[in-house]
């Protein structure tokens, strides 16, 4: 029987892989995870009564017992937890002792892959990997813990499959090379974290509070005030720890973000998954000319925003931030788009933002400018427009104004064309719906490496057989 070779490559015949397990040390790490919380409970906050009843040793014994129980339960669920790729190329995770659960994750729906090392896992050289898919609950997709090298390898494999590369059953997926775009210096990060309104106020009032405490000794008032003031400072501190050494790198996988001091995290945002972007230049940073870039990435429904990638660049000089934003949208410069301002009567409705309000649209993106204390540039590609809304409050109707909302997936960026003339607003809505439809018809396919849609200015020409290309030495813009 002769085999017919067709011109057009047919659908890839995936072969299922053998099931793999997470690292055996996982149950121990999970048991250790609960220790700090329990110790704090028994010895500092809340459980002192119990400690007094059974004595210190007794309390420690209880903690140890709970840890052993947790380790045993974790071990049982470890034996049941396996993951593999099935015949369709999708990821399957099987778990559960009493309730058997098998989850199927469509790699074509992959939004981003996150490899993170919480402090405890880092000590053991382990990492957790979380593939994020739009519309599914995030918790179940979290694979804890793999050895760090394996985790990165697995991520490469997931992203390769999402891109449509063929990966043989037990061969290593090619690790996409990367080019570092920008790395945030520690001094800049520290300054940016301090230069936030809440932090500055807290820092300014702190010495006042200390002096007041020393002079009046009115501790009933001082202590609660202390806790109120210390909160923004603690938040700033945790932001600093989280974004320490923030590095943005570009690869055929997409944007790679790496950050963190105690917990190291690595997030990948595949191209075309970014739903909307925003460039913010807070007025407090104006003197140094800094800005930040935040994005909406479609992620698991109902999960808190902290887990989903949302900060692409916490702080950088404005030209650098603009360049990174332009990298996320290949071939498009959103700042080139012509914007039209709002009618003069909008001043009655938005006196502070009036000067900055403007919107515009190009062939690929819709752009909105707004904000007063924090000037913002919002960008949404037409292909990522979910729905378009026109709203008009009573006061707006008196002024013949209306607002247009371009809806995107949940995230920090909300695109709104505020206070436009009402006929113009209706026109914008209809035009945006048309553009969105046209853009979807021409949208880049989900498996972006398979169909050879050229990303404008590709850094490295991706060859399907294996990525071998010169990695350019990391240069920051």
């Amino acid at each position, binding site marked *: 029987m002769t085999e017919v070779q067709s011109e057009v490559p047919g659908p890839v015949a995936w072969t299922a892989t053998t099931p793999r397990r997470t690292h055996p040390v996982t149950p121990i790490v999970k048991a250790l995870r609960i220790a700090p919380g329990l110790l704090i409970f028994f010895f500092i906050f809340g459980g002192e009564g119990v400690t007094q009843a059974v004595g210190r040793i007794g309390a420690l014994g209880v903690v140890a017992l709970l840890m052993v129980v947790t380790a045993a339960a974790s071990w049982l669920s470890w034996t049941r937890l396996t993951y593999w790729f099935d015949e369709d190329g999708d990821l399957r995770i099987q778990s559960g002792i009493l309730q058997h659960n098998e989850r199927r994750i469509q790699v*074509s*729906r992959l*939004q981003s892959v996150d490899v993170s090392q919480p402090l405890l896992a880092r000590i053991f050289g382990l990492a957790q990997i979380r593939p994020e898919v*739009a*519309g599914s609950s995030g918790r179940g997709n979290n694979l804890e813990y793999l050895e760090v090298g394996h985790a990165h390898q697995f991520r490469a494999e997931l992203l390769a499959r999402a891109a449509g590369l063929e990966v043989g059953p037990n061969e290593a997926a090619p690790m996409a090379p990367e080019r570092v775009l920008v790395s945030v210096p520690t001094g800049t990060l520290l300054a940016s974290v301090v230069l936030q309104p809440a932090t500055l106020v807290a820092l300014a009032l702190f010495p006042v509070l200390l002096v007041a405490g020393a002079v009046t000794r009115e501790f009933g008032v001082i202590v609660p005030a202390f806790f109120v003031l210390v909160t923004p400072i603690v938040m700033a501190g945790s932001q600093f720890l989280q974004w320490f050494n923030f590095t943005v790198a570009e690869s055929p996988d997409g944007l790679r973000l790496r950050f963190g001091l105690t917990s190291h995290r690595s997030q990948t945002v595949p191209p075309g*998954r970014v*739903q909307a972007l925003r460039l913010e230049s807070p007025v407090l940073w104006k003197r140094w000319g800094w800005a930040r870039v935040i994005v909406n990435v*479609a992620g698991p429904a109902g999960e808190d925003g902290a887990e989903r990638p949302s900060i692409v660049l916490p702080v950088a000089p404005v030209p650098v931030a603009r360049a990174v934003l332009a990298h996320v949208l290949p071939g498009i410069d959103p700042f080139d788009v012509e914007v039209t301002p709002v009618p003069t009567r909008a001043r009655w409705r938005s006196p502070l933002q009036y000067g900055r309000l403007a919107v515009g649209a190009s062939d690929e993106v819709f752009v909105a400018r707004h904000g007063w204390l924090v000037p913002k540039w919002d960008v949404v590609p037409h292909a*990522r*427009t*979910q*729905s*378009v*809304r*026109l*709203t*008009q*409050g*009573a006061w707006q*109707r008196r002024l013949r104004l*209306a607002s247009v*909302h371009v*809806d*995107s*997936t*949940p995230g920090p960026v*909300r695109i709104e064309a505020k206070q436009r003339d009402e006929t113009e607003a*209706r026109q914008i*809505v*209809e035009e945006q*719906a048309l553009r*969105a*439809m046209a853009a*979807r018809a021409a*949208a880049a396919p*989900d498996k972006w490496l398979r169909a050879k849609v050229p990303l404008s200015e590709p850094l490295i020409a991706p060859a399907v057989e294996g990525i071998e290309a010169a990695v350019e030495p990391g240069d920051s813009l």
Partner: protein
Amino acid sequence: MLGPFSVLTIAAVVASVLFFPGWATALVVAASVVWLAWTFWLIGRQVRATGYALRTDDLLVVSGIMFRRLVIVPYGRMQLVDVSRGPIDRHFSLATVQLHTAAATTDATVPGLPFGEAQALRDQLAALGEQRSAGI
């Protein structure tokens, strides 16, 4: 719309009868009557101002009087279509159709449709959405 406010009003009246002196009760009852009358009138106007249109490529929904809303949802962006009915809806054989996209802010809700029409609309939308399905 009607349900929660009516329940609250009735609860307020009952509470005032039980706990407040005569003149306060009369005041609460009068206020409740005025409030209910106004709500009925308002809802009547709002219903007349609510509408939907199935266009070639998208669904258009308008609603609101004081605060006007117009939503355009392309068929390809639809993720889910809900048909829901509260107890009062069921009594009058009405239903509410709600369209969900990947955006949480999409507000395409058509209340008060006759149940048969609501189901037909849902099936039509599901078919159109399937046809134009375009991922995220």
